[in-house]
């Protein structure tokens, strides 16, 4: 479904990504793990088109989308749930969700997806008239995820969703993400919580200083010497 082929990204001339390649197949949950500054977020931003690769190619459903603009990419069905959530604070919960459906033109579909999100996160329904900024951190994360589901995207990309959440909420978050996979969503997950991410992932990639250096199934990676040493401190 998604194929990233040796992309290189420069920030003001300095390489942020040297050579990143990865692939996501339909229905898969793929995790990208690595240390802070390894280029995980930059990789997702390149896929959604807010940063442009200097070289390399990004293909989605056999279409070259490397030069597409962000709105065009979102319309193809790729949704990016940003790090730090980026809730529209002054807008209500429901307005935030409706903005997630901006690219949808069918009112009936929007209604259906809104009901789906409210059923997944009942607390959001309770708070639908409240301003987004009045929600707690965990509720804001639900809102960010719910907003990302409003178009039933073909590919859902999470950027460090566990950042800033209490440990109890982190395990709930990973449960939600596995649940979404079971419901048929294709997911690309970027995480610093290496163990939890690899435990729920079908496959994973290890990113180090702007390169994908290792890949395998979630289980293989968890058991690999490199991951155990570098990330799990074993």
């Amino acid at each position, binding site marked *: 479904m998604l194929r990233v082929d040796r992309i290189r990204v420069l920030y003001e001339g300095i390489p942020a990504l040297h050579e990143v390649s990865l692939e996501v197949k339909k229905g898969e949950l793929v995790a990208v793990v690595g240390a802070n500054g390894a280029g995980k977020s930059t990789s997702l931003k390149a896929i959604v088109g*807010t940063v442009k690769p200097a070289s390399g190619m990004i293909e989605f459903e056999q279409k070259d989308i490397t030069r597409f*603009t962000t*709105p065009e990419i979102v319309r193809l069905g790729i949704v990016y749930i*940003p790090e730090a959530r*980026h809730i*529209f604070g002054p*807008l209500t919960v429901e307005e935030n969700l409706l*903005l997630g459906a901006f*690219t949808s033109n069918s009112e009936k579909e929007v209604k259906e997806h809104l009901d789906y999100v409210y059923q997944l996160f009942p607390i959001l329904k309770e708070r639908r008239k409240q301003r987004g900024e009045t929600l707690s951190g965990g509720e804001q994360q639900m809102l960010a995820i719910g907003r990302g589901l409003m*178009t039933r995207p073909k590919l859902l990309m999470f950027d460090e969703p566990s950042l800033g959440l209490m440990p109890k909420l982190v395990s709930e978050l990973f449960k939600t993400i596995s649940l979404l996979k079971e419901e048929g969503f294709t997911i690309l997950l970027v995480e610093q919580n290496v163990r939890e991410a690899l435990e729920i992932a079908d496959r994973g990639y290890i990113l180090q200083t702007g390169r994908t250096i290792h890949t395998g199934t979630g289980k293989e990676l968890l058991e690999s010497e490199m991951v155990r040493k570098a990330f799990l401190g074993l």
Partner: protein
Amino acid sequence: MELTTQLIIYGVLMGLVFALIALGLSLIFGVMNIVNFAHGEFLMVGMYIAYLLSTFLHLDPLLSLPIAAMAGYLLGIMSYHLLIHQILRGPMVAQLFGTFGLMLFLRYLAMYIFTPDVRSIKQGLLVGKTLSLGWVTLDLSKSVSAALCMISFGIVYWMIYKTKLGRALRATSIDSEAAQYMGIDTKKMNALAWGIGGATVSLAGSLLAHFYYVTPTVGMLFTLIAFAIVALGGFGSISGAFVAGIIIGLIMVISGHFLSELKFTFVYIVYFLVVVFRPRGLFGW
């Protein structure tokens, strides 16, 4: 009693016109964080459109409203694409000087074409007529202009707060990066803010021309009034612009009646006090 009523009514009427003038300045600031120094020049363009159509084509200035609004919309969109979008990449000062340059360009282009002569509209359905409401007599052109400004303001308000497009515009103004992730073309939203800003202020200009003289430098005064309104109402706040417009209108008309030379001084004293004591304005963040 009669005088007080009359002053208050005129204050509110002028305030409604001011509110529509300030709306675009606030909107553009809210969406893009850019202060448009050429705002008053957009007003001047609307005034000249009403004047020219009335003088040379004998078109009633009321009929020039849609033409002025359309021209203002195009002027706003063009300013965005040809100038603002290009200087966005530059530092903050580049943006400041960019719109300042646009102001000078439009002002002196008008000076070249129309000469500095002071002109006014001589004929029209509303020009020079009065309206009697019991014990107060009002200038008909001011009353109708104020009513039309209020209606236009209401339409823009509805568009921003009740439609999907307006929701996208507000999202862009709150967090432009996140708006892109929703699939919103933020460049289009920026252009739209400039278009609406240009259309509303130019429309206000064509109404203002009913009872206010037209010169190439008229924009300066109204830019400053609009600044005072936007500061008082809160930068980027639409309802703030409405309330502050009326407050400034009242201050100007009432102080103007008693101390006519000082009426603008009072407006800028308010501006000064707001900046010092409540910099976020009445309805800001």
